[in-house]
Structure formats: structure tokens, C-alpha cells
């Protein structure tokens, strides 16, 4: 089971804040599942900051980051205002 939590803009756009998925082999595959479940287009999800177990995917293998089940995924829209 992979748990996906949406934050900020993505939570506002989705039907739910949290989803659970089985069988996603990597982050790219997972995002297609999130698209189907949440209604947020894949293209938009690719713009998000994505953490796998607390590690941002730009410090891993980006969308090719492998998933094995049990991961906690956070999809975040950072803010830059002050």
C-alpha cells in the first residue's frame, strides 16, 4: 500500500486529501493513478514538489524513483510570498 497526501493547491483541487494505492512501480506510474483518483491532470501533478518518505524526488530519481509499497508520498505546492 502506498499512501499519498495532497497539500496546498493540490488538496484544494482534489476530491480527497489522502489516497491509497497498490501496485505503482515508480513515481510516474503513481501519478497516473493519482490523476485518475483525484481528477488533477498528470501534467499539473508533475509540477508539484513530491516527497517519497520525506525525500524530495529531485534528490532521488525524479519520476523514475522506484516504489515498492509502504511508501508515504507527499504532493506539495510550495509558497514563496512574504
Amino acid at each position, binding site marked *: 500500500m502506498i499512501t499519498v497526501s495532497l497539500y496546498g493547491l493540490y488538496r484544494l483541487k482534489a476530491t480527497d486529501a489522502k489516497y491509497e494505492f497498490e501496485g505503482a512501480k515508480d513515481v510516474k506510474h503513481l501519478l497516473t493513478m493519482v490523476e485518475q483518483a483525484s481528477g488533477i491532470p498528470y501534467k499539473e501533478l508533475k509540477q508539484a*514538489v513530491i516527497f517519497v518518505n520525506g525525500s524530495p524526488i529531485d534528490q532521488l530519481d525524479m519520476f523514475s524513483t522506484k516504489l515498492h509499497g509502504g511508501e508515504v508520498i507527499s504532493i506539495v505546492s510550495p*509558497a514563496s510570498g512574504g
Partner: protein
Amino acid sequence: MLIDALSINTCILSPEAIEELNKIRILVVGVGGLGGFVAQGLVRLGAQNITVIDGDVFSDTNLNRQFFCNSETMGRQKAVVAVEEMLKVYPQGNYKAITEFITDKNAALIMKDYDIVFDCGDNIKLKLLLEDFCIKLGIPLIHAGVNANYGQLAIIENKKILPSLYRREAKNRNAVILPQVTSGLQLNLFVQYLHKKHKKNKLYLIDLDAMQISDINY
């Protein structure tokens, strides 16, 4: 007098934290939406040594959210106004204004004299620069970013997070509520830092629409 009123703060501050507040040298970068609330909050917490830096002046688009912006301060330097107002609360405070923007050329020279920095800036370039120099100089950075109803904050000490957060342009359009809530949480992180109770490598995510604060251990 503030000095008497400060004794009420013992409800959240230990004697050791109060002693630290007397000594710690604080730099608040940006005195807009976040920075105005942070600066006045630091004074009311009892911080004695605060410098605010901002090269900008108040304009009418700041009125909806910036604590020190009003009809009398319009067109004036934000940092100068902030210090004037801070001194009205606590005239004995060692408060200074720097009316410049921080750049990669002056950052090290300015920041080296401080023990902690508040990131209240409103653009990505500045935020990345602050994280970079704070880590190089070994100064904790209390980062925050806000947009509409959501934002994030963290104490950054030696592990970078902002290049990952700001790989792309991030949104930035604000009303008064989120900056006020977020700056309060920045002050709370500061109080936790004074008590050595803050959590390392934790990113807090604020969602006012859902009335939630979540966190990610990064």
C-alpha cells in the same frame, strides 16, 4: 512599561530562554506581510537585539496585509518605519534598520553579525540566497513562504530544502490572515529554538482552508 509586562511571558518562556532573548542577535529579512508581524512579535516577546532589513517602501498594495503599512507610513522605507514602531513599544530596545536589499554581494557581510535569521522575504531568489548563506555561516534560518490560504515553514540549520521546494516558480498572492498565522508560527518555532525543543529537518505545511498544520520529516 513593557519591561513589567514581559514578566507575563513566563507563561511560555523559561528563565534560560528569557536570558537568551536578552543576548541573541536577530535579523529579520523583509518587513512586509510576514516580517511586520514577526518584528513586532519579537519585541513583545522581549528580544533586545533586532535588525530589520528591507530596501522597499510602503505602497498602497501593501495595505491589505502589512502590519506597519498605513496612510501615514505610505511611501516611507519599511525598515525605518518598523524600527520606529518597535521603539514605541520598547524604547530601550537595540533595534536597527537597514534600508538595503540583501544580495549575494552583501549577504555575508550583513549576516555574519547575527545568531538567527528570519526569512520573511517575498521572492524565491532571496529565499535561496538566505538558505545558502545561513548554512555557510552556521546560522539557523526560520524560513516561511505564504500564498493565499496555504504556506510552509521550517527551521533550516544544516540541511538544505529550499532548492527542492523552489524548482519551479511558486505562487505568491496574499491577504492578511495567512501571513499573520504563519508569522505567529515562525515566532513559535523561535521560542522552541530558544528552549532547544525545535524539531530538526521538519517542514510544516499550513492549510487555512482545512484549518490544518501538517508536517514532513525531510
